[in-house]
Structure formats: structure tokens, C-alpha cells
């Protein structure tokens, strides 16, 4: 059972992990909302070292206003960005009800 569902507000963690990490710097510490649940996938942080990456980790697409990612974003305030984030890089932005 995935921890989050579409619409939940989440904050991206900054786990400080070296190596093959798929969570880019610019979304860390940022808050967005779950756009969709994508399914569970082997952890790429383990796959990169020839390990099986199991159990598979829930993956979500997270939706951000560009102004949340870049305080000085040069475009209109309605512009957005969507990106995939694995469950262990997320925490609820507010208590889940």
C-alpha cells in the first residue's frame, strides 16, 4: 500500500547520499504535491552497485510550482515542474489525516 496518494503535500528530503542518486539538488528541501503513483521499482542507488535493489520502492511523480523551486523564477507564477521521487526521499509536508 503506497504511503501517499495523489494530492498529498510532500517535502523532498536531503539524504546526503553519495553515488548514483536520482534525486537532483534543485528539488531537495522543496515542497510539492503528489501527481500520481507510478508503481514500485528496484532502488537505483543499489542497482548502480550491482545489487538487486529489492524490495522495490514506491515511486511517485511530484508536482511543484516553479516559484517553489526557484524563488527568482523568471517566468509567470503558473509555471510548474513534475519529477519522479522515490518514497524514501519524501516526508509528509503536514500530518496525514
Amino acid at each position, binding site marked *: 500500500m503506497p504511503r501517499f496518494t495523489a494530492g498529498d503535500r510532500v517535502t523532498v528530503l*536531503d539524504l*546526503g*547520499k*553519495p553515488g548514483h542518486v*536520482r*534525486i*537532483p*539538488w*534543485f528539488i*531537495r*528541501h522543496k515542497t510539492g504535491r503528489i501527481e500520481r503513483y*507510478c*508503481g514500485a*521499482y528496484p532502488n*537505483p542507488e543499489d542497482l548502480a552497485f550491482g545489487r538487486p535493489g529489492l524490495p522495490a520502492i514506491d*515511486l511517485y*511523480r511530484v508536482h511543484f510550482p*516553479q516559484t517553489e*523551486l*526557484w524563488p527568482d523564477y*523568471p*517566468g*509567470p507564477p*503558473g*509555471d*510548474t*515542474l*513534475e*519529477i*519522479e*521521487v*522515490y518514497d524514501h526521499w519524501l516526508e509528509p509536508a503536514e500530518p496525514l489525516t
Partner: protein
Amino acid sequence: MTPEPIGYSADAVDPSRLVVEGHEGADYYALMTEAIHKILLEKQVLAPSDTDRVIAALEAPNVTWGARIVAQAWKDPSYKARLLADGSAAAREMGYAIKEAKLVVVENTSSLHNIIVCTLCSCYPRSLLGQPPWWYISKNYRARTVREPRAVLAEFGVAIPPPMEVRVHDSNADMRYLVLPKAPADAAERRFDDLVRIVTRNMMIGTELVEPYRDRG
């Protein structure tokens, strides 16, 4: 002297550091790949036909496959609904297997323009469209598309009138993305094959339009 600890935190990134294009160190890996290939052939672990088969499979997909999916969606509203709900299943209906990941299709409308980028490397629906264009892999495109997408689009000659939303999709993990461009105004009257011909690779990445968006002021 104690070396500075290496920072792996976002807080350690210097936002003013220079972005350098190129493939430093790639020569070494190209040479090693060639050497290993030669050894595997000599030891008869691999036959030359094995390599040919893999190269042929990599080169088989092409832009027309994606264009046929787009034209079908323009012609058939129920196919479009299935395509947006499950891109991989709808591609399979047209005879194309998306092998590397799940296909997510995002639709351009009169209020929303989508653009695809992979900030980390060059993730791209290769099993459908073939290999990505050189600029898609460039650090310039990858760094700037998430930061100033409208400036990047302007360099491709694409203007998005400000009331419209620009949505960037970072293809950073296990999904692959295809933009469903906004259909030409006369799509209903045009033949399927004619529509296939007008769809370009860049339209399916989001860096080209079929017709300019009208400024709604």
C-alpha cells in the same frame, strides 16, 4: 592538512559553478570497451552477429513510430483517452513495445505546454523514438530547461503566451515521456498518413509546435 569533507548535501552545491560540456574520460572507456569486445570475440563468448543484432535493435526505432501514435490520438478521441491513461498499453496497441520503462504521455492544450528534459543524463523513450538528439544530452539543455524553460523554448523559436502554463517534466527515474502536440486545426479533415508526416521529433519532446499558440492576452 586535513582535506575538506566532500559535501553530498544540496546545501553544498555552489550555484555559480561553471557547467562544462563534453565527455572527459570517455576515450578511456571507448578503448576499454573495444578491448573487451575483442577478447570476447577471440574467446568465442560473442559472435560478431550478436553485436550486429544489438546495434540493429537500437537503431530500429524511429520518429515515425511516435508520429503514428500522435496521429492516431488526433484522429481517434477514444485512443487519445487510452494513450493519456496508459501510454505503454496504447503504444502496444499500435504494435510498439516500450521496453525500458513505463511511457507517460502528456497533452499540450491551449492553456498548457509540456516540455521533456532529463536533468541527470539522457533518459528518453529510445525504444519508440530511437536515440535522442545531441542537444537533449547537452548539459546546457538539461540545466537550463528546469531553470528557465521559456528562455530555452524561445531559442527553439517557440513562444508560449504568458497566460499559458509551461510544465517541465524531468525524466529522472523510471518513466519515459512523450508530448502529445496540439493537433492542427484541420486534423479531422486530413488523412492519417498526412498527419504522420507533420509530426517531428522535437514536437514530441516539446521544443516545436505544429501551429503557434494564439495569444489570448
